[in-house]
């Protein structure tokens, strides 16, 4: 890939990130109930993917790099799952962080 093309990618991704930022602030003002969080987290995920794939070059990285952070994400997912199941199935009303 030529450097002028890569520079164009950096600038285009920056513009997309700014657009996402504007969008997420605007959408936060519209009452959507629980979907406000879904929408804002969805946009955050898109922004994170833009940074990870283009700025951190994961898109063109060798397989070892693409796999490096997966075990941590999987383990964290398991931790989230177990903790969530625990809290959601408690009969007694709980106080957070106990």
């Amino acid at each position, binding site marked *: 890939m030529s450097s002028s093309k*890569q520079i164009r990618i950096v600038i285009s991704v920056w513009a997309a990130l*700014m657009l996402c930022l504007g969008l*997420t602030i605007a959408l936060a003002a519209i009452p959507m109930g629980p979907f406000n969080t879904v929408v*804002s987290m969805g946009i*955050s995920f898109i922004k*994170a993917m833009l*940074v990870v794939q283009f700025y*951190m070059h994961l898109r063109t990285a060798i397989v070892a790099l693409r796999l490096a952070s997966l075990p941590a994400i999987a383990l964290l997912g398991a931790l989230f799952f177990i903790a969530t199941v625990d809290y959601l199935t408690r009969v007694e009303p709980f106080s957070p962080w106990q």
Partner: protein
Amino acid sequence: MRTALFDESNQVRFGVWVFLASEIMFFGPVFLGYAIARYALSSGFDEAASSTNLVIGAFNTAILLTSSAAVAMAVVLSREHEDQKVKRSLEVTIGMGALFMILKAVEYWQDWQEGLIPGDQFFLASSSDQRAAELFYSLYFFSTLLHSVHLLIGLGLLTGCRIQYAGTARNLRRLEGYALYWHFVDVIWIFLFPLLYLVGRAA
């Protein structure tokens, strides 16, 4: 040539990615704690979240995203051996990072003035549930301070990189490793921003 794939540049990248994986484990539980606290104290928690300074938060997000673009630009330029441009890009990155910290300090000072530091004196006038508000602010301070510590370390690393930068192969590898870390700190903020500043804004 199988071995050629795993050259020194990829070794550095791999090392940084494994380190970032451990950082994901470090930050992850903060988000879990947030989710559980918010689930338990929904309305009071959301009320407190809408009292943060959205203008500074949004401005800081834009600054951090721009600093990420600048360091990505530095990496692209370093491969072309445009040493002077690399240095300028790094200076922009460091300047943006410093501006982020200054604005964060202003925000903390305002929080201090308003009595929003969790503890005996904590009081949020706009809140109907002081306990939920205090828990939100505990999370707010813990997550933003943890993020700020990471950002300060990144600033130190990038400043060292800028001072020593002479376009050598070693310089290039270091720059790329630090850039990966800087992007990671940016990604953490991408998720913190909506949770700390945008929750409860839809009235």
